[in-house]
């Protein structure tokens, strides 16, 4: 059930930003655009990021947030973060921009990017977790 509610919420967030702001919900592009020009204007990107960062605080007022331990080391997180940043920038999108927005508007680039991203993630996970 929570998978369904989550999907509805994510789809609604994409729809709101598109229908009201005329913009694609692509996180890496939004972060990039924001950092390039953070305070020159009080941009929609700033408010979007603010909403996303505030979401756990608001959510926790009504529901419990699951607790968990992140097992990756700081070095692994930094290195992977770097690969993800460079990758998103080279391919002009990440999970939200390509796999949700791009696929839903049937962009050929995004469909290809999504297939490759997923395959690479599946292969990497399974190769690094051979037991």
């Amino acid at each position, binding site marked *: 059930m929570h*998978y*369904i*509610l989550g*999907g509805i*919420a*994510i*789809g609604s967030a*994409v*729809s*709101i930003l598109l*229908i*009201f*702001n*005329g913009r694609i919900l692509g996180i*890496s592009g939004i*972060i990039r655009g924001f950092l390039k020009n953070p305070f020159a204007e*009080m941009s*929609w990107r700033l*408010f979007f990021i*603010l*909403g*996303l*960062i*505030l*979401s*756990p605080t608001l*959510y926790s007022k009504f529901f419990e*947030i699951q607790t968990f331990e*992140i*097992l*990756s080391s*700081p070095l692994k*997180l*930094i290195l*992977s*973060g*770097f*690969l*993800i*940043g460079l*990758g*998103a*920038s*080279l391919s*002009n999108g990440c999970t*939200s921009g390509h796999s*949700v*927005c*791009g*696929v*839903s*508007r049937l*962009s050929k*680039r995004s469909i*290809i990017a999504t297939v*490759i*991203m997923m395959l*690479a*993630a599946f292969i*990497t996970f399974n190769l690094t977790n051979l037991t």
Partner: protein
Amino acid sequence: MTLSTKISALLSGLIFGFGLLISGFFNPNSVLAFFDIFGNWAQGLMITFILSIAISALAFIYIGHRSKSILGEKIILPEKNIISQKLFLGACLFGIGWGLIGLCPGPALVLLGNFNVEAIYFFVGFIPGIFLNNLFNRNY
């Protein structure tokens, strides 16, 4: 940039965050379990993906009939349609990083707001990563 566009952007960010929180997408362990196709595959996130794509598709169809957004903003959609080596390379690098830690930029921002220190490490790598591409561009 009117007040209403700021409010709708804030709302979109909040609801997006709620979606990541409810589905468990913000939890790297759930995402890694989704990658574990040969083990204990947790395929639930596929439902989240498909549903979010279906709803977004309706919004794209609707906006396709309009020349401006409801709030009068210009509609800005990506126009690139070249299948380049950069696209392949970028998607590969992204997938490798994602498969290693189970975290991508949206969930990382949620974790930042949830005061998980791991999100800071992620962004220490991510931010130089998104700007390194500018150096490549100069060579082309």
